[in-house]
Structure formats: structure tokens, C-alpha cells
């Protein structure tokens, strides 16, 4: 509620803090999307904490409390391995990707960590047809913590609505 006249109205300072935090998370998500769009996967991996959790899971599984994910990493070591392997060993056709993040909601938890959700859309362009396709549509459920270099992801769960993956998911979301 951004109504200063109501009884439990947040103070102007609180509102500014909330807006600044939201801007900070937004800036993080933009940097995150850029790293993936530019396929700088090593940079992407460093946006997680040492124990950072990363999972891309279908909404079908998530809603039924089934744990299987397309990419399932329990710490940054696994995330780095993923980034390194995709860059150095994986064979897939060249492609352009655009990660769009919006509808961000942010809440600060008591322990100082930050819970947030956002919607995401990934467009993909392959070089054998002219159009971009909507490769994945979903929602991030995030927990951020503040470390020396700024915000880091302690957890990002990517819950995708699209039932079918178009062939393969080569770059993370």
C-alpha cells in the first residue's frame, strides 16, 4: 500500500527504502538476463552464493510437489560446472536468446534476506528460420542475500508454465 494517509501507513523513508530495494533487485535481474543473453555463463554462475540453489522445474511438477528439474544445482560448484560444460563441451546449434523479466515483487525477510518473485519470458532465435519463438514462460521464486559485491542469489527456482520444451534447453533461464 502506497497510501500515506492510512493509519498504518509506511513512512516516506520506508517507501523509499522499498523502492530502492526493488530497484536493486531489478538491476540484478537485468544484469542476470544480460549475462545469459550474451551467453557469459561464467559471469552468470558468479551471481549465486557458494551454497546457491538453482532449479528449473515444470509447473506440472512444482504444483504436484515433485522435485525433478531440468537443471538441478545444489551449490555454486554445480552451477559453475554447468556453465563450464555448456561453454566448453556441449554441442548445440548456435542461437540468440532474450530473457525478459517483469512483474517483480520484493519482500524483505526478518533475517535480512530478500524474497522476490518475477515473471520471465525467454525468446529464442535459431538460424534456420526467421522468427523468434517463445522458448519458455515462467516465474522466478528467489531468495537474495547481500554479500560484499552486492546481491547474490541464495536460491532461484524457475517454474516454467510451458508444458513442452522445444527440443532442448541449452542456455539456463
Amino acid at each position: 500500500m502506497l497510501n500515506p494517509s492510512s493509519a498504518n501507513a509506511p513512512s516516506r523513508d520506508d517507501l523509499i527504502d522499498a523502492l530502492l530495494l526493488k530497484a536493486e533487485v531489478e538491476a540484478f535481474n537485468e544484469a542476470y538476463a544480460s549475462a545469459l543473453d550474451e551467453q557469459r555463463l561464467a559471469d552468470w554462475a558468479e551471481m549465486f552464493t557458494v551454497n546457491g540453489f538453482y532449479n528449473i522445474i515444470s509447473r506440472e511438477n512444482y504444483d504436484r510437489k515433485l522435485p525433478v528439474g531440468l537443471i538441478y544445482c545444489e551449490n555454486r560448484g554445480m552451477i559453475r560446472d554447468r556453465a563450464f560444460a555448456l561453454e566448453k563441451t556441449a554441442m548445440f546449434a548456435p542461437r540468440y536468446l532474450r530473457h525478459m523479466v517483469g512483474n517483480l515483487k520484493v519482500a524483505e525477510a526478518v533475517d535480512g534476506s530478500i524474497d522476490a518473485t518475477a515473471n520471465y519470458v525467454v525468446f529464442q532465435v535459431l538460424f534456420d528460420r526467421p522468427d523468434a519463438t517463445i522458448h519458455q514462460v515462467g516465474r522466478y521464486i528467489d531468495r537474495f542475500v547481500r554479500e560484499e559485491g552486492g546481491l547474490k542469489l541464495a536460491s532461484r527456482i524457475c517454474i516454467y508454465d510451458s508444458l513442452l520444451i522445444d527440443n532442448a534447453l541449452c542456455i539456463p533461464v
Partner: protein
Amino acid sequence: MGFRKVAELDALRDGGVTGVEVDGVPIALFRMGNEVHATHGICTHALAFLKDGYVEDGTIECPLHQGVFDIRTGRALCAPLTQDLATYAAKVEGGAVFVDLDSASESPSDAGPLEEVQVAENTGGSSLPLVIAGAGQAAAAAIRAARAAGFSAPIHLVGAEPHLPYERPPLSKEALGDAFDRASACRLPPADVAALGVTFHPGVRVTAVDAEARVATLSDNAQIPYGALLIATGGTARRLGIPGDDLPGVHHLRTLEDAEAIAASLASARTVAVVGGGFIGLELASAARARGLKVVLLEREGELMSRLLPPALGAAFRRLAEAHGVEVRRDVAVEAITARDGALALATTTGEIFADTVLVGVGLVPETALAALAGCEVAGGIVVDAFGRTSVDGIWAAGDCALHHVPLDGRRGRLESWRNAEEQGAAAGRSIAGDTAARTEKAPWFWTDQFGLNIQMLGVPGTGNEVALTGTDGAAGAVYRTLADGRVTAVIAFSDAAAIRAARAELVSDTPFDLAAHGARLLAPQETNPTPIDPEEDDMSASPDVQFAKKYVWPQEGLSIIPDWVYTDETVYQREVERIFHGRTWNFVALECEIENPGDFIRSNVGPTPVVVARAEDGTIHVFENRCAHRAAEFCRDLSGNAKEFVCPYHQWSYDLKGNLVGVPFRRGVDGKGGMPKDFKPADHGLKQLNVTTHRGVVFASYADGMESFPEYLGPEVLREFEATFDGRKPKLLGHYRHSLPGNWKLYHENLKDPYHATLLHTFLVTFGLLVAGNKSLMLADPSGRHGVMASAKSDTTHIDADKKKEMRAYKEGMTLEEPRFMDFIDEFDSPWSVTMATIWPNLIVQREMNTLGIRHIVPTGPNEFIMKWTMFGFEGDDEEMTRHRLRQGNLMGPAGFLGLEDNEAIKFVQDGMLGVPGGEHLVKLDPGTEAGTADTLISEAAIRAMYRHWRDAMGIA
């Protein structure tokens, strides 16, 4: 460090390469007699183990890109190599091999020019040529088999006809129609003649043989000394031996020219007399009827083929011909033929018959004179053993002129069939090359195309056998079994290739054939005649099966070529749905744990067809089409759930959990008006229900009735692997992946029957050194060819010391995983394999990639795309850490898996290649030593070939 013992000399194959590890360094050891050389074990070009390479003339050829190194000096001898290979000093002392990693082998510059190393070649003990008398199909098969087995001496092919070897079955079929291409029948095209080092002598016979001196004399007076002589002289068409049997207009059939002459005469004839009611006679009659001609068929005996088949079966063939307008006269012998008034008059024992053309099909006279001249034993055919050897040393025989090596139905006989020419020819070729390994005996198999049907016969019927029939006598789908003491001796199927496939098991079964269980009935020798079809309305070219068979012809090269239309053609795809997914197959639909409780259901698919899998109140599992019996609506829309009944939202028709129709709103109308007809019975309008079976918690469905049990369907070898994964513990659902793949569904099976790609495409494992030298592996194909298991065993890394482990993970500098534990294998299965990929025909892959377990369910949506639904599972009783281990290891597979995404991309690339450049064909020639089936090498495509042998059978593609 000095010399270290690395192996026993006896453990190294002479002339071969062996891989060992010394302090974590992979070493290749090459034994040449009592001398051993050592080099680094990995190619300097790409990451490949030289132990898998090919040793020749003192060189080692890398298995990956055919780079060649000198074994003694390590010198890189050709492109793509740019860097020499490290060599190590090696010595042999006291029967043991020692290697010093710190010093190179003797100075390369001192080695001087390499001595010629004698390479063992298979010439069957002689470098003298192979001479083949007769240039038919058996000769072609022998040449290919001999060369494949390493035979390196010259080959002389001596043929009386002017043509290179061709197959004869088309002569009485396609060659009598329009637009026959001679080249399509050729079994040894000119390119192969050159490539296989064959000298062809057309229009020449072998006229004499000196078996002592081993010299063959040709009709052009040439003399050729031989190491081996193969007599494949075939035979000649039997003449009637009556006055007038050589008149113009009287035709026999053996050669291409004969077929062309018959085709020309049919083009101008109105009436045709066919003499002889065997398979050739019937095919000739069929060809004449296809042109709308009046056909009389004359048979000397009381029933057709009475010396080959029980009378009831001969009668079935006769009635088929009669039903298509052929006038069959039995107990008639032709005594003379005369030309009169522009036609031919046949004087017979029952009167005179006139015809424009006379086609004689009274059998074959084997050409055995040369064999007899050479001193070979001849008894109605040349006597040979299983390797094609005659009674005379150095002389082999094969094909129509040779006897089968074992008695058939109690007597020695010849098998005049395409299959026999191939097999006897190949057996002789291998034997001549020195390969005397016994091959599995296959039941004789034969096919004939007549009157719009493809008729196949497997086994050897006895003329006194009983005959059991399923289906409609004489119609497509009719299956005849000949029975001796209740056991099946042969199966004859009218346009039902699936029945022939099933028959393989029946022929070797010890249990008597159960008539009731198969819905079969015994045929009396004389059954009533069906109503003949009006010849004027009988247009055989309209039969869809015949049209299909004409349009879709497999390349003559055989299984080593796969044409693109197999993967891209809409008609082929529709036929796959009908004959495979809706045919005699068990299709995966669910895990039982997905429908644990009464009322639980999931949406699933059998082929492209949406079905519902539900558990009824009584605990039974039911599978029915997700298509309302009223207006076809796909009524069940939820992926899974629990229901008491299913109600179609359109008009509220309701069905119980078994798919029975329960309620039809306003069935009796309103106020006595409207409603369903009075005789409407809900029991007749349920959902289409499929047959269901379960095995170890996995649910399968089939459109076909009377399917064999699931264990029988898999066969013992594949069943063993299935049960190693589904080991009795209760599966626990962990979740799904679903993705669409822009490729043909069969490419997915092929990818998992193709162990060749594993280390080439998936560099992840190799790069990180996770693929350990010495892994055991297997590419299994079941006897039918439809199922397979790709298996490998991870070496137990827990018993390797830390230094070595570190070495294994760092074949390339800087390439290590931070979290390699996700690759750990927790040995929870009673199996020698840590990884198995079971391809279970037609729609299931069972993945056991160490501890990450998954079902992959293929749902084709057209020739160019399929959906893959993955069902990942663990077991009841897994603790949290085990579940997490399975999830971590799951990173290998699936649409984003380290290995999985590469397979998906590769399949897309293949389909793109076909769609972009249509009309091509694929090459699957790896490992010619195994034509089709289980391979003892991973550099093999034999399992893919086995799958296509089955597929062609199921699809009716000759």
C-alpha cells in the same frame, strides 16, 4: 622411476594393441612377436584411446579420425595429425613386459626404414584366386561375404548370362508389369565389382575342372588356376518335353530376357494358358489377370503344389486364384502344343484348349553337370555341408543347384528361394575366406506376391500335416499353420508380416499349438468354394497394399542403406501408426505408482492416440481412448487426477473407470419425442478399450488381441535388463519432463542402438576424464531385432588411489569438475552394468544412467516430429540423500541434460538434413561382420539394421 612391470607378455595379443595405465598415464602396448613397443595411450589430435585403434604394418591408426602413427618412433604419418606421439622404452624379461616412463624408446633416427611387417590375411590358406562358376545371386552373396571376412586373393566371376548377378524374384512379379528397371534387380552393381576386386567373365561358362591340379577351364578356352571354386550354376527352367514346347508363344521363365519376352507377349495376348500350378505358375497367372487377360491354369496333380503343401493349403492357394478369375483345371496333363489359326492349341488329357500365349512354370532343373564332372557328390542337387563345402576339397556350391545341408521334412532337398541363395552363398564365401564360425540356423523363409497379396511362408510344411486357419480363408490376414503332432512346422500368412514374426517363436516352441487360444480352426482338405469375383470388376492395382509395396521399395543394397522416406513420408508414418503402434505391440502407458488408488487416472498416449489410464474401484487398470463415443471429443483434459467417472463436457455422456458407457442424457427423449433409437444399447457404445498388462509396476497397452505375454514379448535377454532396473522395489514418482523433438521418432531408437556416437558426440564424459579406460560394454539386440539394450559398466573408482583418480579427471589440463560426486555410482542393482538404455519397441526407453532412472515415452505426432514424455523415478525407501543424488545425476539427461541436449540437437540436425536435401539415403554399414543383431563391438550399427529388418517386416516393405 625406471622400468616398471606393466603386463604379462601372454596377455598381449600378437599384432595387436593393448591399453594399460602406469601411474595414471594411459599407455598403449604393441606386441610384435616377442617384442613390445610402448607409446602414450591417447592420440595427439583428438581425445581418443589408441587401444581402440587398428594396427597395421607397424603403424597404429587412431579409431577416431584415422590418423596414423609409427608404433616404434611415434612419428605422425598423415593428416590430421600434426604432433608425434610420445614413446616409452619397453622390454620383455621373463615373460613380463616392462616400461620406463622416463625414457623414450630407442632413438627414432637410428630405427632406419621400417621393415615390412607381414600382415595376416585370410585367403583360406591360399593366395590363388576364387573362381565362381555362375553369376547369380548366390555368387554375389559369396563375394561380399568372402571380402567381408578378409579374403584378399583375386575373384573371377564366370557367368553364362551377359549380366552381372541379379535377383530372380522380381522376374515373375514387377518385371511382368510396366516400368520395370533392370538395375533395381542387380545384386552386384558395377561399382561393387570394381570395389570388391572382381574380374567378371560375362557370357562364359566353366566347362571343365581339374580338381587335383585346381584348374578351371572356361568356354573361351581360358584356364584359371584356383584356390577355391564355387559352383553356383543355378538351373534351367524345366521343359514340358512334349511336341511343340518350343513354339513361338510358349514361354519359360528363368532369365531377365525370359521375363521381358513374357511381358511383351502378355501385352498383346487376350487369353493365356499357364501350365503348372506352383508359385511361379500362380504369379504368372496373377500378372496376366492384373492385365485383365483370360487365364486358364492347368495342373497335372489333383491339387496345387501337392508335393510341397498339405492339400488344404494347396486348395487355399487355388481358391485365391479362382476368386480372382483364374480358371483352374486339375488332373490335366498337356500332351502337345500346335500353332493353329494364329493361336496355340494345347492338346490335353481332357480335351483341347486355345490360348494366345502359353506360360510354362513346371519347376527348375538344377545345373549340376559341372559339379558331377569335377567329381562332387550329386543327389538331385550338389551335396554340401553347412559351410557350402562339396565332397571335393577346394570346391564349394551354393544356391539353386545345391541341396540344403540338412534334411527338410525328412528328405534332402533344394530350397529354391531368395533367402537360401543369400545364405548359402554367404556361408560359402565366409568358409572360403577361412571363417568357419557356425551361424545360427534360420527357418527357411519364402515369399510370393500374387493376386494383390504378399504371402510369406516360414518353416517347412509337411504334405501330410494338418492345417489350422485364423482369419478368413484366402483373404488378407489369413494365417495358415501346418501342424505335425500338434506342433507348428510352418506358417503361411496372407499379407500379415506380423504373423510371420510371431511364428519364429511358434516354430521352436515345445508346446503343441493351442487352437482355441488362437481362435484357429482345422481346415478339412476340401472346403466349399467362395464366390468368384467378377473378373470385370477385379482391379488388383487398386489394392492399397500392392500400391504401397510398389511405391516403397527398400534399396537393393539391403539393410546397410536406409532411405530418407522411412523418416519423412506421411504415408509411411500413417502405416506405422496402423501396423506398429496400433498393431501387435505392447505400448508403455504409465507407471503403476502414477495411478496408485482407485479413481486415479492420467492422460497418456499409444502412438499418437490419446488414451486415459485409470484404476477402477476393483483395483484393475484400464486403458481406453480419450475420445467420446458420441462426437469424438477428447473429453479428459487434466494431465492427472482422481475421478469417480468421466463425463464428456459436450453432451454429458458419462463413462465409468473402465471406459464403459453409463449415461446418455435424454436417451429416451422428452415427452416421448426425440432420444436415441429404441434398440440403442449403451454396452455397444463404450470407449475403445485396449488390452492391458503390467510388469514390475509398469503398465502397457495393446490394440491387438491375443498378444503374447510381456515377458515373451521382450524375450529373456531384454527382460533380464528390464527386471534389473525394475527389481521388485516399488517405483516412486519424482516428476516429468516433456519436450517436442523435430525429428522422426525412430531416430530416437536408433540413437540408443548406436554405441558409435556415445564418445564422439558426448565429449562431456571424455573431456572430464569420467569415461574410464577399460569400461565394459555391450550392444544387445533381441532376436526379433525390435528391442535392444545399450549397456556399459563403470569401473569402480572407489578402489583407485587418489593420485590415479586425479590423473583420470585431468586428461586435459584445467578441465575438472568442481562437484564430480554427482557422477558417483551407488551400486544398488543386481547387474554387471552401471548404465543401461533399453529400447523397448515401439514407444519406450528405460534409462538407468547409474542412479538416475527414467522412462522415456515416445509420442509421435507425424513423420517429422515426436513428443518425448519423461517420467523420472526412484524407489520407495530411498532416503533424502539418495533422492537428491538421483536428482543431481539427473543433470546428465533430459531436455537440458549434459548428454541429453546433445542427442536432441543431433536428431534435429538429422531431420533438417533430410528435409533440406530430400531423396537421399543413410549409410549404416558399420560392422559388416554382424549383419543385424547383437554386436561384440561398439563400432557397430548392427542393432540399427536389426531394427529395420523387423520394421520392414512389420510394415510389409520387401
